[in-house]
């Protein structure tokens, strides 16, 4: 007899989603989380006395509506402070570009570009729908496929054909190329080009000229076909999502234990039997399901010595590079962005002046250096949710690129200058910003890696590149949530279909576990 049917390592959103589905299927599930609160990257923390902020992701884009309804998340506390926010690409002179749904306005944009924008989004929606077919299930194997995989192929094949000849051949051209070229051939406005390209590179260690960035754009765009038209802000910060998922899991009968660090995954003879905690406590289960990234799972928790060497080599070769930093500012009052109406401060604000500016910001990352002129995606969550800061005061949260995991001179030397560069960049658009800052926090890729246990600080638990998606995610042979080691499954963003607060990896994994019948 084991203590549990399944132990889920990590109460990140995928871990909790997986736990919930397993619990829903009547399984006895334990979720172990090393941090004090469940949610993983779906977290809110107090970065200065009285100032709360979403620790990692700040916008909800892609959470699967199926997961929301299956787990009844609204009943468990998930509420939105704002939905369908516009994206405003800031302009130094105040001529901002506003993107809302299929419409683009301001920023000196031409009517051709406006039309092209709607056409572009329509096309992207078609592609994203096709992608959703692949995301909703385990990735099919190409050669050793079974009936279920064949069905997925059939669905995808049909979806391709239904795109029509032109869109189908265009997809084959686009899927591997870079967003830079697509922007150049589609739009005239450099502001528009850059605003879209920012979405393609955010959370990735790539620049707009890097091939593969159309794919990352589509990955992010997927939210549009899931029902998120524009950015959504979670009430109480992203931690509310984490709490709701945890409540859902608990409600379905799963046990969620925080402040509990798994020291190792235990393996006897040829199967995984449970985990040992840092306290020394051993807990047994029929299955261990890890939502930690593959390198953490295999290298740190299971141990490479428990695996065959070819798989070790594949795990070691997964790329986890990141160039993404989180900046949090406590503000004594609302900043004034040149030419921006106060009422628009609650929209999604982006600083990405041009494709070349994005690319120039990216270049230093390749050499473990940081951008001189960083680009960013800004949220002022207190506009829609004043409870996050003391009365009359505000929070500015920004996802900033690019800065490396291990800068050449070390983060201690870079921390202050990089923060200065970020504030200087903000000040180009909001000249009074510096005078309003009462507290600040910079979470480097190294900080994010340490806090959230993400190898390399990569948000997706492994870069989303064509060689690391579908049947090669996280590695060939272990793409269908099984690891080839009896009793050990994966359910994190490192598995198909990757990260982005979708919950699909967790859901797909739970379905696969149930289908395999190991817990029957």
């Amino acid at each position, binding site marked *: 007899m084991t203590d549990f049917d399944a132990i889920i390592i990590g109460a990140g959103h995928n871990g909790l989603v997986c736990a919930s589905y397993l619990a829903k299927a009547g399984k006895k599930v334990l979720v172990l989380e090393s941090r004090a609160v469940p949610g993983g990257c779906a977290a809110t923390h107090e970065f200065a006395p009285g100032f709360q902020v979403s620790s990692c992701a700040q916008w909800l884009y892609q959470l699967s509506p199926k997961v929301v309804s299956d787990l009844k998340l609204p009943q468990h506390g998930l509420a939105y402070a704002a939905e369908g926010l516009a994206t405003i690409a800031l302009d130094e002179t105040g001529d901002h570009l506003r993107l809302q749904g299929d419409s683009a306005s301001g920023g000196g944009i031409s009517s051709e570009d406006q039309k092209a924008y709607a056409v572009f989004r329509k096309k992207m929606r078609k592609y994203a729908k096709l992608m959703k077919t692949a995301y909703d299930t385990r990735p099919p194997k190409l050669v050793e496929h079974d009936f279920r995989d064949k069905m997925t192929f059939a669905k995808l094949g049909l979806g391709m054909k239904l795109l029509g000849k032109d869109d189908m051949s265009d997809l084959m051209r686009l899927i591997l190329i870079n967003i830079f070229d697509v922007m150049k051939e589609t739009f005239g406005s450099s502001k528009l080009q850059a605003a879209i390209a920012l979405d393609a590179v955010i959370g990735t260690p790539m620049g707009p000229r890097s091939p593969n960035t159309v794919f990352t754009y589509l990955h992010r765009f997927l939210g549009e076909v899931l029902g998120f038209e524009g950015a959504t802000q979670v009430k109480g910060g992203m931690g509310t999502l984490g709490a709701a998922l945890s409540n859902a899991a608990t409600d379905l009968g799963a046990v969620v234990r925080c402040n509990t660090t798994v020291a190792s995954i235990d393996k*006897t*003879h*040829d199967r995984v039997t449970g985990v040992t905690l840092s306290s020394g406590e051993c807990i047994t289960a029929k299955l261990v399901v890890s939502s930690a990234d593959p390198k953490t799972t295999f*290298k740190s928790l299971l*141990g*490479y*010595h*428990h*695996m*065959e*060497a*070819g*798989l*070790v*080599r594949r795990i*070691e070769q997964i790329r986890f590079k990141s160039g993404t930093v989180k900046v949090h500012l406590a503000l004594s009052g609302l900043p004034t962005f040149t030419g921006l109406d106060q009422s628009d401060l609650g929209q999604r604000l982006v600083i990405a002046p041009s494709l070349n500016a994005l690319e120039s910001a990216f270049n230093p990352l390749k050499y473990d250096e940081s951008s001189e002129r960083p680009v960013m995606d800004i949220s002022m969550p207190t506009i829609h949710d004043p409870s996050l800061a003391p009365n009359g005061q505000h929070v500015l949260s920004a996802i900033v690129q690019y800065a490396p995991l291990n800068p050449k001179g070390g983060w201690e030397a870079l921390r202050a200058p990089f923060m200065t560069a970020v504030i200087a960049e903000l000040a180009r658009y909001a000249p009074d910003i510096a005078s309003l800052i009462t507290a600040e926090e910079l979470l480097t890729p190294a900080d994010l890696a340490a806090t959230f246990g993400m190898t390399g600080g990569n948000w997706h638990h492994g870069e989303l590149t064509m060689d690391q998606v579908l049947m090669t995610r996280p590695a060939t*042979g272990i793409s269908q949530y099984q690891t*080839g080691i009896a009793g050990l499954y994966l359910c994190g963003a490192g598995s198909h279909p990757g990260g982005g607060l979708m919950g699909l990896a967790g859901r797909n994994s739970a379905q696969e576990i149930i289908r395999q019948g190991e817990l029957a």
Partner: protein
Amino acid sequence: MNSPTRATMLLETPFHSRVADRCKINDWGNWMGYTTPNAYFDVELEYFSIRSTTGVFDLSPMNKYRIQGPDAEAYLNRMATRNISKIGINRVGYTVWCNDAGMVMDDGTIFRLGESDYRLCSYQRAIDWLLWCALGFDVTITDETEDLAALAVQGPTSCTSLTEMGLTDLNTLKPFGMRTYDFEGEKLMVSRTGFTGDLGYEVWVSPEKAETLWDQLFDAGKEYLIKPFGSYALDIARIETGFIQAGVDFVPAEEMVRPGRARSPFELGLSWLVDLEKPLFNGRTALLKEKAKGSRYRFAILNVDGNKPADHSFILKGDRQIGTVTSAAWCPTAKSNIAFAQLEMPEGSIGEEYVAEIYYQRELHWTRLLAPCKVIDGPIFNPKRRRQTPAIPH
């Protein structure tokens, strides 16, 4: 140096001055980038030194890796197919190792030098794979290929020759045992191992002592008709005794280019080296699957009628081609015409009879010979002296 091989850009082994002196017919080959004799004076006579007196073969180009550290045993158990824990200190074990697909990468011998101290001796270079395998283990891996000179001393009088050189009581050393002796102020390691299937030893010294070893050995063995032998003679001996060779009888799995050309240990007749009871080793999952599903090929030793070696022959069953020959030789001591073949399953059971399609040329005339052949259950030549301890005296 006035070496005749200078222009070939090949390396010389630590024994080169002595080897070159004895290589009377100047027939050189390239082994792992070293210039080594294919033959010294006469292949047939060299071969008979292995079977009748003492034959000496320069083994120095073999790849040697030192594996040390607290996890050395666990490391080797994960890497190799057989149970390394069963190799005692001062013992040697033959093994193969596979990739995750259960396909053989190479074979070699593991020398256990101490509690957590091993030496792996392999035909192929292996440092890249050994280092990949080291992730997760507390071990250090050192390439010792150039730090050791080695001679294989093989044949019925080999023990006597070596004893005469000063390796006292060598006759008590059991097969696959090893021992160290003082030699010229250094350590000399001797193991009762070899690639000839006869009584024989391998002797290991530092490169600085190589020439001294050679001189002393040949001096001591003079009365026992000691002779050097080259790779052609070795090839006959190893075929006669049923030893396969990487790159000849199988393609090292990670260097395989054409899909399906690699072979598992089961397909190479090496299932005795695979310990599926071990909880984990590279290829185990795939080999368990193969065991359940069946193999694609079977390794067969064929006794071929007539005396024409079945080199590169097709093996036919009726009109159908069921396999190919990878190694073949007329074996002078066994007085048999032996061939190693890869046969498609389910062919190759002991006693099955097939036809080897042999082509040979005499006076510019090619003849196609359809020679009957039979699968035998092991090498015909397998002398008692190979296993006897104490080793036979002269």
